[in-house]
């Protein structure tokens, strides 16, 4: 029993880390119909900035996180303006081609600037140490990731469901022409949502770095994982993404605990099963 709870805690925190990284991709794919394979690259940029700020400049962790988000968004703005905007509404294959190209470029440039080594983001003392939660010890940063996940999910949900911006965004998604006829500047709405998605990716890249270490090939290494998680959840659905991350996190973690030799089989078999049963994702929009 204790083992089960222990595994559940691991699964939960791992799933939450995935969630924070992936939810931005879910937004771009679901709301903006953009298959952005470069999402991981933005998460990676966030990780690099945070690593530079916290490790090389010795800044406070929270400040480094903030800097990472802002910096990544800043880098993403011209990319959105000149590249991504060209492929909104383009065929999926075109989007795949373009975003893979962008990923390659970002990897190449990162490699050039920072070298091929692993980058760590030193955690503040409070997060670095294991915490005793009664029946086992758990790394404090895992709890931190859990809290971040809950905050991000809640915040996003209320942003989309409860604010004027959310209304505009949903309207623009359902009918862009009508929405702009009503006087909403849809390209601004898109740009803001894109920035939001990138910012979330950067946040995920930083706080998830304990699970998915930051290095130049981060963007390619985990591209598939992110894409799969988002599709399973149903692109654009926040509860769907939470559910998918927790479910796949659970399958992955328990699979690796019970039969580590066949860990990947469980994961991908679960993916196939879910996609066959719910082609639009667990809670995807019809």
């Amino acid at each position: 029993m204790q083992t089960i709870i222990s595994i559940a805690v691991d699964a939960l925190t791992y799933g939450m880390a995935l969630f924070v990284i992936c939810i931005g991709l879910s937004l771009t794919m679901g709301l903006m119909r953009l298959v952005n394979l470069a999402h991981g690259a933005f998460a990676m940029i966030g990780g690099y900035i945070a690593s530079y700020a916290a490790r090389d400049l010795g800044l406070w962790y929270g400040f480094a996180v903030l800097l990472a988000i802002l910096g990544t968004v800043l880098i993403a703005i011209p990319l959105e303006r000149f590249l991504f905007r060209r492929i909104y509404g383009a065929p999926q294959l075109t989007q795949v081609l373009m975003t893979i190209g962008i990923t390659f470029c970002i990897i190449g440039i990162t490699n050039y600037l920072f070298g091929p080594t692993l980058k760590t983001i030193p955690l503040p003392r409070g997060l670095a140490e294991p915490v005793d939660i009664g029946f086992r010890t758990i790394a404090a940063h895992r709890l931190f990731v859990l809290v971040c996940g809950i905050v991000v999910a809640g915040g996003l949900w209320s942003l989309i469901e409860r604010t004027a911006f959310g209304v505009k965004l949903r309207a623009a998604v359902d009918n862009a022409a009508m929405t702009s006829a009503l006087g909403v500047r849809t390209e601004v709405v898109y740009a803001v949502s894109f920035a939001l998605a990138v910012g979330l990716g950067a946040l995920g890249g930083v706080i998830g770095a304990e699970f998915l270490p930051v290095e130049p090939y981060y963007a390619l290494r985990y591209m598939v994982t992110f894409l799969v998680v988002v599709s399973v959840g149903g692109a654009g659905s926040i509860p769907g993404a939470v559910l998918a991350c927790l479910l796949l996190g659970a399958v992955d973690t328990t699979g690796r605990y019970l039969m580590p030799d066949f860990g990947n089989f469980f994961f991908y078999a679960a993916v196939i099963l879910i996609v066959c049963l719910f082609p639009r994702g667990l809670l995807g929009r019809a």
Partner: protein
Amino acid sequence: MAVRTLMGAAFGLLLAGTASAETVKVGIIGPFSGPFALQGKNFQAGVEAYMAANGKQAKGHDVEIIYKDLPAANPQASRALAQELIVKDKVQYLGGVYFTPDALAITPLLKQANAPLVIFNAATSAIMTQSPLVVRTSFTTAQTTTPLGKVAVDRGIKKVITTVSDYGPGVDAENAFKKAFEAAGGQVVESIRMPLNTTDFSPIMQRVKDSGAEAVFSFLPSGPTTLGYVKAYNDTGLKQAGIKFLAPGDLTQESDLPALGDGALGLLTSFHYAVSHDSPENKKFVEGATKAIGGADQLSFPSVGAYDGMHVIYKMIEATDGKQDAEKAVNAVKGLSWTSPRGPVSIDPETRHVTQNIYLREVAKGQDGKTYNKEIQTFPNQKDPGLAPAGQ
């Protein structure tokens, strides 16, 4: 940069084959870009350090190096590159090769090419049996792992759980350790093979904890996964619980140590080379290689494989006086022994694999506050146990 020698490739495919007679060309294949670029850079650093120290000539013959990039294991591309080196660039020697399948794709070409292959890294025992023209100056996983079995028993450890990445070298490591440990009287209570793309190791650590073992033996490819693994080992409290950590040195390669940080302190690994190895030869080597690679913290084990590989190639050139004769070249280095930066080494005349010391090391903190692999025990003249008996 030596890489620039390839500039011509863009236009010069037609103009091939203008090599001058007195120049001996050596083709080096390695991962100079991609996820393993650091290991490729180490190849290059080793080669350049050797040539800086010993001159660009062997017995009066100019030695020219041609680098070819092979970012990841891809036998098809490997064969194409080897063919291009042999046929177009007219190299007399092939060297480098980081991954086993890539080496296996080259071996069938050697006889016809009349060129020896000196492997700087690819660490699967069986490569040597594929062609008599292969010489290896790196190590095999079995070779570096085997002493750990005795170490464990000596330290009073009776029960061990093994956790290895589920791929060739991982399985080699598991088998080698099990064999050595059980021969020494220990018991492997459980063997876990983890998929290569595992990112969260907490469930594995839970297994380790549940198994009741006194130590965990691990093998993972060097790089990002190592970080997650060592973190999980610390975070889940295994370290505090006193469960020892044993692994071949791939896990604590010097270029990963800064990322691992203090969490790596106390890890026990066995390996053929530590950058910290205390000898005049190594001091000279580290100085030269650091200059070539651009930073001391990027230096790691492939550089020494390359350095010694170049030594072997130089000896071959001397033996054949610059003429292309693969068999003579290989025969000349059988039994060759010298003092490498890693310590005394020799080429086993039977297997053509390097015989060398294996060191037990502990990750410790130096005076400069940086962690390093501290050699604490030496197992001299280790051969590759994976090749010792003929056949299986």
